[in-house]
C-alpha cells in the first residue's frame, strides 16, 4: 500500500469533518456577538474572576442544548420551527414564535448597539453609523450570496483570538484564576444574579437553536455523518466558552484590578491594552464591529425564515418582493425597528446590550422545554431519543434557570430581600 493509499482514509475522514463543520463553529462564533462580548467584559470588569466557576457548567449546558438541536435536525431533517408546528400545533407555535420574534428584536437592537458602540470608538456618531450600516446589511443579504457573506465573517472572526492572546499577555496569576474557577461563590445581589442570567442568555441564546438546526438541515446531514456533527458541535461550543472566559480574564486583570467599571465600549477596549497597547481600542472596535455586523445580518434573516417556515408563507431571498411579502416584511421591519430603537436617546448602549441578553436568559427555559418535548418523542426521533442521563441533566438545567429568573425578578422588585452573602 502506498503512502497516499494509507493516508486516504485519514484524508477522507478529515474531509468529512471539514465538510460537516460549519454549523457548530459558526454558531459558536455568532455566540460571541455584540451582546456576548459586552456581557463577558462587564462580568470580568465588575466581578473579576467571580464568574469563572460558572463557565464550565455553562459550557456543559451549551453542549447539551446544541447537541440536542443538532440531533433533532439530523434525525428529522426539519427545522425547529417546522417541528414545533408539526408536533405541537398552531397555537403553541404562534405563542413561541411571537416570543421568539420579540426576543430577536431585542437582540437585533443589541447588535446595532454594538455597531454604534464600536464605531463610536472611531468617533463616528451613532446617528450616522447606524442608519448607514442598517442599509448596508439589508442590501448585503438581499443582493449578495449568503455563503460568501458567511465565509467573510467567519474569517474575520479570527479577531476573537486576540482576546485569548490579551488574556494571556495580561499575566494574570494563573493559580489564582484556577482557584477562583474551582470555588463557587455566589453573591446574592441583584447585579450578580442578573449578570448570571445574562451570561447564560448570551451563551445559549434561543435564536441560536433555530439557526443551528436550520443550518444543519440545509447541509442535508445524515445520521451516518452524525458523529462528525457531534464533534463539530462540541468543539464549537468549547471554543465559544473558552473565548468568553478569556474575555472575562482579560477584563478582570486590567479593569477589575483598578476598580474600573464599564460604561461604554471604550472602557472595554482598554482591556486589550496588554496586547495591543495604543491600538487596543482599534482592535477591540474591529472585533466588536465584525461580531455585530455578522449577527445583524443573519439574525433578522433567520427570524424571517423561521416564521415563514412555520406558517407556510413564501420565504427566500431569491424570491421577488411581491412573491414573499411577509418574509421581506419581517426582515425589513426587524432591521428598521432594531436600528431605530438604538437611535433613541438611551442612557447607555452597554445597558441596552445587556438587557437584551438577560431577556434571552429568561426566555431560554421555554425553548428548552419545547426541545425536550420534541427530542423525547419516539415517533419523531426513533431510537435517537434522549437517554435518561441527558434528560436528567437537561431538566436540572431548566429548573436551575427558572429558579435564577425567579430570583432575579424577586431581587429587582424587593432589592433588599437577601442580605449581602
Amino acid at each position, binding site marked *: 500500500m502506498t503512502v497516499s493509499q494509507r493516508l486516504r482514509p485519514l484524508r477522507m475522514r478529515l474531509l468529512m469533518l471539514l465538510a460537516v463543520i460549519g454549523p457548530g463553529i459558526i454558531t459558536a462564533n455568532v455566540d460571541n456577538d455584540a451582546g456576548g462580548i459586552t456581557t463577558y467584559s462587564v462580568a470580568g470588569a465588575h466581578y473579576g474572576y467571580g464568574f469563572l466557576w460558572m463557565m464550565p457548567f455553562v459550557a456543559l449546558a451549551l453542549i447539551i442544548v446544541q447537541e440536542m438541536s443538532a440531533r433533532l435536525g439530523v434525525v*428529522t*431533517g426539519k427545522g425547529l420551527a417546522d417541528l414545533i408546528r*408539526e408536533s405541537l400545533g*398552531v397555537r403553541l407555535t404562534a405563542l413561541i414564535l411571537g416570543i421568539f420574534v420579540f426576543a430577536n428584536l431585542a437582540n437585533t437592537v443589541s447588535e446595532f448597539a454594538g455597531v454604534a458602540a464600536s464605531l463610536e470608538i472611531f468617533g463616528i456618531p451613532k446617528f450616522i453609523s447606524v442608519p448607514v450600516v442598517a442599509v448596508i446589511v439589508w442590501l448585503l443579504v438581499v443582493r449578495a450570496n*449568503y455563503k460568501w457573506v458567511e465565509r467573510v465573517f467567519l474569517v474575520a472572526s479570527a479577531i476573537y483570538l486576540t482576546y485569548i492572546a490579551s488574556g494571556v499577555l495580561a499575566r494574570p496569576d494563573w493559580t489564582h484564576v484556577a482557584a477562583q474557577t474551582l470555588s463557587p461563590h455566589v453573591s446574592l445581589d441583584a447585579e450578580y444574579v442578573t449578570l448570571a442570567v445574562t451570561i447564560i442568555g448570551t451563551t445559549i441564546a434561543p435564536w441560536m437553536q433555530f439557526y443551528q438546526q436550520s*443550518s444543519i438541515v440545509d447541509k*442535508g446531514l445524515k445520521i451516518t455523518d452524525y458523529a462528525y456533527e457531534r464533534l463539530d458541535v462540541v468543539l464549537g461550543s468549547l471554543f465559544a466558552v473558552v473565548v468568553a472566559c478569556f474575555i472575562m480574564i482579560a477584563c478582570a486583570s486590567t479593569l477589575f484590578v483598578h476598580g474600573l467599571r464599564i460604561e461604554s465600549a471604550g472602557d472595554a477596549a482598554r482591556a486589550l491594552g496588554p496586547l495591543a497597547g495604543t491600538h487596543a481600542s482599534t482592535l477591540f472596535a474591529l472585533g466588536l464591529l465584525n461580531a455585530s455586523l455578522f449577527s445583524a445580518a443573519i439574525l433578522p434573516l433567520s427570524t424571517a425564515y423561521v416564521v415563514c417556515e412555520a*406558517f407556510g408563507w413564501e420565504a427566500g*431571498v*431569491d424570491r421577488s418582493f411581491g412573491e414573499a411579502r411577509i418574509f421581506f416584511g419581517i426582515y425589513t421591519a426587524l432591521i428598521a425597528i432594531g436600528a431605530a430603537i438604538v437611535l433613541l436617546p438611551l442612557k447607555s448602549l452597554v445597558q441596552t446590550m445587556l438587557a437584551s441578553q438577560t431577556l434571552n436568559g429568561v426566555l431560554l427555559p421555554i425553548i428548552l422545554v419545547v426541545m425536550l418535548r420534541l427530542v423525547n418523542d419516539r415517533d419523531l426521533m426513533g431510537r435517537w431519543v434522549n437517554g435518561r442521563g441527558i434528560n436528567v441533566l437537561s431538566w436540572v438545567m431548566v429548573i436551575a434557570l427558572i429558579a435564577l429568573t425567579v430570583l432575579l425578578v424577586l431581587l429587582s422588585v424587593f432589592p433588599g430581600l437577601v442580605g449581602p452573602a
Partner: protein
Amino acid sequence: MPFVSELTGKVVADANGARVGRLDDLIASTGGNLPHPPIVALVVKRSRGTLLIPLCDIAVLLAPAIALSKPIESVAPYQPTEHDLYLVRDVLDKQIIDTNGMRVVRVNDLELTRVNGRFYLANVDIGGLGLMRRLGVARTAETVAGRFGRSVASGMIPWDAVELLPGNQPMRLKVPSDKIADLHPADLAEIISDLSRADSSKLLDSLDVETLADTLEEVEPDFQASLIETMPDEKVADVLGEMAPDEAADLLAELSDDRSEELLNLMDRDEAAGVRKLLSYPEDSAGGLMNSEYVAVRPDLTAAQAIAYLRETADEAGTIFYVYVIDEADHLIGVFSLQDLVLAKPKTPVSEFMHKRVVTASLLDSQDSLAQAIAKYSLLALPVVDDEGKMHGIVTSDDALDKIIPTAWKKRLPHMYR
C-alpha cells in the same frame, strides 16, 4: 361544512349520556382510491388510553357534544387497517404538495363534507383564514378585514389535488402517488426546489428513472449534483443514460473527478463514450454544448425510406426537427426538415429536396456566435462540424440561448437555508 379544527376537542358521550372522552383525531380510509376519502372512525382520548370508535356508532357528529348511538359497552372498537389516514396526526400542520398549484404548502385546516349521512374529506385549507380559525380568531379577523373592505385569504385545495410528502406518509399506509409522476418535469422540479433536502431525496426516490432524468434536466447542474449526492451510483448511472448526453455531461462536470469516472464506468459503453466525447470540449464551446444524438441519413435514401428509418431510430435521438444528410465519410452535405420530408413524394431521393447550403458551427465556436447564428437563421438546431466538414453533433436552440437569456425558469440551487 365542518372543519377538523372545530371538531377536535369536543366531548364524546354515549347513548346513556355517560362521558367517554374527547375527540382527538379522525381516521379516513384511503383504500378504494376515492377522490375524497370517507371518514371511518374517530379517535377518542380517555383518561386511560385512546379508543377507536367506528363512524357507524356515531349518532351525531355536528353537535356541541358528539353522541354515540349505543352505550359504550356495546361499541366494538374499530380495527386499524393499512389504509388508515389519521387526519390530525398525519395531515394537519404538515407540508403537502399541491398538484394544481405546483407548490409545497402547509395544511392549516381540513374541511369535511357530508353526503348521504356519511362524511368525506373534502378540502385542505392552506389559507390565512384557516390559520385564524385554528387560533380561534377567524371571526374577529373577518370583521376587521371587512372594515377595510377586504377579505382574509381563504385558500382551499380539493383533496384529490393533494399529495402527501413521501417523507410524511405513515409507514403502513399505502397511498398511490401517481399524481406526482403525472406532473410535468418542470413542475416537479419547481416542487422539489421548495422541499428540504430530506424530503426532496425521498420524493426523487419514488420516481422512475425516466421521470427522474427528465426532472433533473429541469434544474441547474449544481442543483442536480446536490440532488444526486446521496443516490447509489448504479441508479445515477441509469439516470445519466436516460438523460440527453449534453445534460449528462454538464452534470458529470459538476461532480468530483473520482465520482464522475466511476459513474462513466458504470454507464452503458456507448452512452459513456458519447458523454466522454462531449466532456473533452470546453464547456462554453459548441463542442461542450452539443448533443450527439441526432438523425442522419445517406443521400440516396428516398423520402419513404427516410421516414421508415426515422421510425426505427428516432427513439434514440432526442430531437428530430431536422434530419441531416451525410456521406460515407460523415461529411455533412445537406439538411431537411420534417416538413420537407412529409411533403415530398415518397419515391423522391432526399438529395433532391435537401437544402445544400447548411448553416454550421465549428467545434470551438463560442456560445455567443452560436446564439447569433440561431437567431439570424431562425433555427431550432445548429449542426456542429469539424474542420473537414464531418458532423459531430447538434446544438439545440435552448442550449445556445441558455446563457444569453437568463434561464430564470430553470431551478437554481437553493442557497442560505433555501
